[in-house]
């Protein structure tokens, strides 16, 4: 193979260096554009081309990244409709009556589902794809190219050394070639030099990272289209079957066949919560466990399982997770006409307190409809300052329920849907208010009936999800981490060895190397190791050998 000397002066050297760099103005060796081009020409085609080139330039990617970060900020500060507590949006409306509608119009109460957020990340992904796919092609081609020829003046490289040896140039070069190949360099033997390079894996890792991000997007899309999520509140001794009717809330993806949901079912036998007693964390939750009996389908045998916070139930691609929990007081209500109603109604936790609020509606009571609002106190006690009943501990050590009984028109027939958990008392009159312990009965005035607080059950809320894109996303993020590590840890470096007879007739061996400036430091050690190994193969002679042997 003929040996081509590159005429090296400082410009050529920096050109050599810049081949490993990605900062020049013009597209780099991977074809990645740096800046947005100047204004387009006249025709529609040139405008489109300008737009595409601008979109896939590095600077645009930077801007889009920042927009993405900036756009996420209001989504974390303002209450979100799709978040864990959508009621806070209504609270925000109450406290900011003029500002809230404006924010809503801008889509700031549902940032991550809004059109403009989607626009930002879609543009970013298009830019990514438009940059990475051509770059992958070029990388694939570059991987098949041979290492470049040695510069004429190896001593001008950033790291270099040379020594004289008694070996013949051919021997020295042959050994150098062998040595470099054993160190996994791609090494080529030229007439009077060995050209080596290493570190293509860096770009491979880089491309793997970016392409995996695209796969993550695909996985997320798969979930939103083919997956479903739902939640259900189940009282103790009640059951749940995986059909759309049984869910309290259910959001299927577009292509989910809601008639063919996995036919599992379970019964909540007992819910157990334990709490810290005493010490600085008094009242903090210790463990939550939902003991269920479940079957994967109607014909299978029922088996027992305990669903806990970090321990979901998995069946047929669907997972059942334990969400919240609470109490369902059991009331027996008699109306004015002697009818009896037996109701166990879930009461919901009030954040920031230990009490649970709920409502019992009796539209069939006669002569007028009855409604009971109440708050359940697991460990009831009187607040010493205000005198109000309150709960001082989350476990049911001293349960009591404070109720208000109303009679009148529940408003269920006016055609407007009502929440199960709120009572519209605008058309009702209050009959009585009292605190009941288990077993107590409140007799209503004027023979309107009575309310007996029998006891309570617990309830547990379950989140049920089917997520077909999950393995795709998981695999892709693992690939991103791998690609990231490779692209940041590996440097591209080039190394040349030249051996030739100099004026004195002895063989002069020159070794020089080059790397990216960003991650220098490690290369010096590696260079030193190569040199040491080479010197073992082609030992230095003369004065140098004495000092070399000292080392």
């Amino acid at each position, binding site marked *: 193979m003929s040996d081509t000397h590159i005429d090296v002066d400082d410009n050529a050297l920096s050109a050599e260096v810049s081949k490993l760099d990605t900062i020049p103005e013009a597209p780099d060796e991977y074809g990645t554009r*740096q800046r947005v081009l100047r204004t387009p020409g006249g025709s529609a085609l040139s405008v489109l081309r300008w737009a595409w080139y601008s979109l896939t330039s590095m600077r645009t990617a930077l801007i889009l990244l920042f927009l993405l970060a900036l756009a996420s900020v209001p989504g974390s500060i303002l209450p979100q409709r799709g978040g864990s507590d959508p009621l806070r949006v209504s609270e925000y409306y109450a406290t900011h009556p003029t500002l809230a509608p404006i924010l809503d119009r801008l889509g700031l109460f549902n940032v991550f589902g809004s059109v403009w957020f989607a626009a930002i990340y879609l543009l970013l992904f298009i830019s990514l794809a438009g940059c990475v796919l051509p770059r992958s092609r070029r990388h694939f081609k570059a991987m098949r190219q041979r290492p470049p020829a040695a510069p004429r003046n190896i001593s001008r490289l950033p790291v270099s050394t040379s020594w004289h040896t008694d070996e013949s140039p051919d021997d020295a070069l042959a050994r150098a070639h062998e040595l470099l190949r054993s160190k996994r360099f791609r090494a080529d033997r030229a007439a009077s030099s060995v050209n080596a390079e290493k570190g293509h894996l860096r770009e491979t890792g880089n491309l793997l990272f970016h392409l995996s991000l695209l796969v993550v997007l695909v996985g997320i899309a798969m979930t939103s289209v083919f997956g479903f999520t739902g939640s259900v509140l189940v009282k103790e001794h009640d059951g749940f079957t995986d059909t759309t009717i049984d869910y309290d809330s259910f959001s299927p993806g577009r292509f989910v066949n809601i008639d063919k949901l996995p036919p599992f079912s379970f019964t909540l036998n007992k819910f157990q919560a334990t709490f810290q007693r005493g010490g600085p964390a008094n009242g903090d939750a210790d463990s939550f466990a939902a003991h269920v009996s479940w079957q994967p389908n109607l014909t299978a045998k029922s088996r027992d399982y305990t669903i806990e916070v970090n321990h979901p139930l998995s069946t047929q691609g669907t997972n059942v997770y334990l969400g919240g929990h609470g109490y369902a007081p059991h009331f027996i209500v008699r109306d004015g006409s002697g009818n009896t109603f037996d109701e166990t109604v879930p009461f919901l936790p009030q954040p920031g307190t230990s009490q649970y609020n709920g409502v019992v509606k009796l539209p069939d009571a006669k002569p007028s409809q009855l409604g009971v609002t109440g708050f359940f106190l697991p460990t009831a006690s009187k607040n010493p300052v205000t005198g109000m009943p309150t709960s001082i501990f989350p476990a049911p050590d001293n349960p009591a329920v404070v109720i208000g009984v109303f009679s009148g028109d529940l408003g269920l027939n006016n055609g407007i849907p009502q929440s199960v958990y709120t009572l519209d008392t605008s058309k009702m009159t209050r009959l009585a208010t009292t605190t009941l312990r288990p077993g107590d009965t409140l007799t209503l005035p004027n023979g309107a009936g009575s309310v007996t607080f029998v006891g309570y059950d617990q309830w547990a809320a379950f989140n049920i999800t089917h997520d077909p894109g999950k393995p795709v996303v998981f695999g892709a993020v693992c690939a991103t981490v791998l690609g990231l590590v490779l692209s940041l840890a590996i440097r591209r470096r080039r190394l040349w060895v030249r051996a030739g007879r100099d004026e004195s007739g002895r063989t002069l061996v020159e070794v020089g190397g080059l790397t990216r400036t960003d991650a220098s430091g490690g290369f010096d050690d590696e260079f030193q190791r190569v040199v040491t190994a080479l010197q073992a193969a082609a030992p230095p002679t003369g004065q140098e050998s004495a000092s*070399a042997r000292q080392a």
Partner: protein
Amino acid sequence: MAVDVGLARLSNDLIAGGIVAYSVAFLGFALDAAFGEGFDKKASATAKLAAVPAQVPALVGASAADSLPPRTTPAPVVADVAGVVAAPASSDKFKLTRRIGALAVVCTVIGWLLEGGAILSRGLSVHRLPWGNMYEFTMALTFASVTAFLVLMTRQRARFLGVFLMAPVVLALGLAVLVLYVPAAPLMPALHSYWLAIHVTAAIVASGVFIVGTAATVMFLIADRYALASAAGKPVRFTALARMMPDRDVLDRTAYRAYAFAFPIWTFAVIAGAIWAEYAWGHYWQWDPKETWAFITWVVYAGYLHARATAGWRGRKAAYIAMLGFGTILFNFFVVNIFISGLHSYAGV
């Protein structure tokens, strides 16, 4: 299991000792920086990509001992822990400050051991990993930063970071002990998982290394401003501060190494958090405020890495982006934990 109060008290005593040791170390670094010989900017500049005019053939043997590439001047790119600098024979008037600098490193190690003991005893007292509330997070974060600093000093010359790293570490620990402190207690049930070890550890390690990178970035911005102003012949304030720093390329490169190391770990931390969220709550991503801010931090540091590869954005602009990234970490740690409620509110404060 009950909390071992004796060990908890030991932890408090040890952390107090650690703060004292770090403060003394900070003082030592500051003295060394202010009155020491400074950093040989010319010598450190040879680590840059530059044409080497002359060549010393025999240096291969001589310098193999300190595992350096052959170079004209004895390059000071040497392990710094013992404080022995392979500098040219300088005058003896700097011997005292060099000793003070070495002592500062020793004090840092002592503080590191004390803080490590405090974390260990706290963990033993509550029979769990001590990363469950903001006080413990702060201890762990500062421990991670100082560990990263010490490790960095074994791989390159990094003692110059001492002043700018110890200051925030001492301040953060002071804040932790005075404001964020909560007595030792067990964890909430949602945190009973081995994912705590994986996710929170990764987040703490990455944040600690980001803090080291931020210290280098702050120094870079000062040094860069000074270099620009003196090149333009303009006067600039705090010249003494800038003169005591190494060459800005060294600072830039140190910062980059820190960020490049921490970024994959942060990526992994976010992913591990998502996997844990999947087990605990059924969804791997719910745009919870803490998740969102971890994502924002990730995007900003990704922007930093892109900026370094973009023409016109290297140097100062990239440094600003890195500072913004640190700002998001601070926001995530203080504002989101305390003021914004979500699924992640385990601040315990």
